[in-house]
């Protein structure tokens, strides 16, 4: 009797867990279903909505302009009606993501390579959690600092920024050159494995040098004012909050996630491969470039893809650091407006069920589909990679 009761309870619990588990997973997956259901009436309206679908991706006639143009102006005061054209938003999203990858990928991959190859084991064990903390920094804080501290600073110190861009790599190479001239005793005190730490004062020194050099460079090459030179000679407008600021802030935000995955991929390469190459006389960097990177390239690629997915969907940083002007220019010093920021600003005011509402939901669906696909692809690539490592290295 007691046995029967236990069995019955077990069966009941299993059924409940199954139902609950399936329910939870269905609820999470329900997001996609909801978005699709809400967006469909846009394409097959029950009653005419008054907008032409081509207008969403083709240039429209804009009052006051001769040629048709792309405009996203959902709430227009005058009588010409709202203008819904998605390309400026898509462009803004991709531009922001692209600039953040330009900043983040070299930093993250460099850091991953360094920590997989040269870094001392103890430092590496500390570095990972530190960068994990960096990843946890909320977007609203990064966006706030970028929009209200970095943007005004950069506006006043364009020359310094340019000098930094030139001096940082040169300074690092110089540090390498100087290090090789040091006596062996000092070299042992400053090992390459801890270079990440002892290079920091050196970088601060470089910063100081750039501070001195920046204004002089500006006087020498650009007639004293880089910003005016940009506007006059190159015809580039400088917006206070622009794509480069967004790129820097969002780059900072995605560095940790790219680093973590790329480092996983690199340090997962079977030791036998790297040791073989080094035994044949390759330097560690040659080993990385010729042996480890080809083996780990899918993993590195998937790391970059995850970073791109995060950059495309990040809302608060773009909202606070980009100026939110829906422009379609290739000028990186101009503002932009991304889809995520548009949703955050406009959706609370859009009437539910209206065209504007459904268009914003379409944008959300695009974001969802893009990030989901990219992440799935990255996941598949990584699974394949792990299988390949097992085949290459055997049980390590």
């Amino acid at each position, binding site marked *: 009797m007691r046995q029967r009761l236990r069995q019955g309870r077990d069966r009941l619990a299993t059924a409940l867990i199954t139902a609950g588990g399936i329910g939870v*997973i269905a609820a999470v997956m329900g997001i996609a279903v*909801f978005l699709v259901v809400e967006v469909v009436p846009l394409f097959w309206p029950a009653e005419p909505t008054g907008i032409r679908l081509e207008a969403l991706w083709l240039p429209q006639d804009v009052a006051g302009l001769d040629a048709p143009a792309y405009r996203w102006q959902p709430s227009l005061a005058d009588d010409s009606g709202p203008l819904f054209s998605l390309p400026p938003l898509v462009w803004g999203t991709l531009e922001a993501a692209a600039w953040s990858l330009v900043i983040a990928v070299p930093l993250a991959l460099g850091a991953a390579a*360094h920590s997989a190859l040269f870094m001392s084991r103890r430092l590496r064990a500390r570095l990972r959690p530190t960068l994990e903390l960096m990843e946890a920094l909320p977007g609203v804080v990064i966006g706030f600092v970028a929009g209200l501290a970095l943007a005004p600073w950069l506006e006043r110190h364009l020359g310094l920024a340019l000098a930094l861009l030139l001096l940082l790599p040169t300074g690092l190479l110089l540090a*390498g050159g100087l290090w090789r001239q040091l006596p062996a005793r000092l070299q042992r005190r400053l090992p390459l494995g801890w270079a990440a730490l002892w290079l920091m004062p050196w970088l601060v020194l470089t910063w100081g040098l750039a501070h001195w050099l920046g204004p002089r460079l500006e006087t020498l090459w650009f007639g004293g004012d880089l910003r005016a030179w940009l506007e006059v000679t190159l015809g580039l407008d400088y917006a206070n909050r622009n794509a480069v600021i967004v790129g820097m802030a969002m780059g900072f935000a995605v560095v940790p996630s790219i680093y973590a995955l790329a480092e996983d991929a690199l340090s997962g390469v079977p030791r036998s491969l790297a040791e073989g190459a080094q035994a044949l006389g390759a330097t560690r960097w*040659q080993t990385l470039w010729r042996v480890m990177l080809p083996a780990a390239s899918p993993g590195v690629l998937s790391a970059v893809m995850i970073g791109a997915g995060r950059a495309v969907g990040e809302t608060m940083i773009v909202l606070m650091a980009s100026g939110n002007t829906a422009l379609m220019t290739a000028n990186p010093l101009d503002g932009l407006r991304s889809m995520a920021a548009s949703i955050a600003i406009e959706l609370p005011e859009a009437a539910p069920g209206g065209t504007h509402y459904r268009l914003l939901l379409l944008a959300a669906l695009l974001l969802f589909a893009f990030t989901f696909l990219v992440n799935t692809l990255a996941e598949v690539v990584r699974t394949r990679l792990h299988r390949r490592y097992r085949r290459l290295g055997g049980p390590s």
Partner: protein
Amino acid sequence: MRGWHRKTGRARLPRGEGPWAWLSAGSVSLSLLLLALLLGLLASRGLGHFWPGDVALVTLQDGRQLAGREVREQPLPDGSGHERLYRTGNRDLDGEIWDWVALAAIREVSHPPELLVLERRRWSEFIGRLVALEPEAGPRLEGEAAWSALTDRLAELEAGREAIRELRERTILPLVRRLEREGKSAEATRALAAAEARVAELRASLGGARLVLESVSGERLIQSLDEIVRARRPNAMSGLDKLVAWGERVWRFLSEGPRVGNVEDGVWPAIFGTILMVLLMSVVVTPFGVLAAVYLNEVAHQGRLTRLVRIGVRNLAGVPSIVYGVFGLGVFVYGIGGRLDQWFFEASLPSPTFGTGGLLWASLTLALLTLPVVIVATEEGLARIPHRQREGALALGATRLEMLSRVVLPMAMPAMLTGMILAVARAAGEVAPLMLVGVAKLAPQVPLDGDFPYLHLERKFMHLGYHIFDAAFHGNDVQAALPIAYGTALLLVLVILVLNLTAIFLRHHLRSRHGTLSSY
């Protein structure tokens, strides 16, 4: 590579690694440096604002005088020197609390000890000199006597305010509530009238006195005493006094509500709202997340479909948070909330009760957002438990439920805890979805109070992250809001860092424990 070609007497291992090694090392240091810079900026600006710095009395070349705290310096636009920004306060006199002064125009800067800084309830601070104190009764006091009388009176004032607040919370509010519930009762009405009379009496004893103030440019101002929160003479304070004053300001920042358009005083409602929302969220997300993880790992048939679902769930963690916000708005707020309003709150339509953003919908949205985090962390913990533990339990005759509840789940406890903490850390920092489902710029009513049903799930709430966004981007005077925004940002970052450190520590603990578990 250069090192490789450099042939010295005997063959030796290459010591140099070529340029790339240094560039890659530099990218690590640069990332760390940027992180340190960001945290340092937040800490210095966030905490520095509360320091009662010296007030400078600036005499310009043309004889004009101004008093204020130095904020920063920057080069003049035409490159002919530098200018300095002073926070001079006195918005009611000057209409502006900032003053840019070119360094070349300054004749003299001094720090006279008698300069007074008053924090007031309305307007901004007053910076200037105290001329006289005029009490309700008695002689007018001037000079040092006025200052010592002022400090005494402010202490009394503080005690009086405290008494009024106590009276209101302990006596008046419960009485009002009782009257509302039970209808009129002579006894309660009499008690209420007595309490209100006591409050009026207290209030009358507080006000009345007036201050005669003078700004450094010579304008006179009459200020009634009950408007004043604090009075200080920073130039006359010692380092220790300043430290005490700083601690007090920090405490006020943490424990009081905002004043003057969210740019002064505290963020307590935002702290409270964040904590409450996150607590509600974790109450929802933990059981469901664990349930789904147990299903995926222990119950479901481990086939292709389960693997696909697992990948899908994992990838949902990478879906932008704003998409969850859209889902929350469309399904919870407009869908379920609108329906609830039609069924239960028809009387108050068209003004929505649940059909608009609120605490409940925000917590549910964030629960959905963090569900993948909990599922993934719990699954990791479940997968670490050696199979022989399960098999042993089953072999001893346990049913699956008993095996799960007595053996597997207790062992997976740290993993679940890690998942929950990570979820909380993620949720505490998310702002974008909240903008769609219920955060408010200024919520006068905290969602938790003494009124039945005590927890008001339909109310809007304040949030630390949104407070930063709002203070920094929607205020009239961004410059004045910056210190509070920095302080709030620092607070948010600290909370999240502590949560994450706890999660990291737990995970480490978990790994070392299961490392020993699976080794024998």
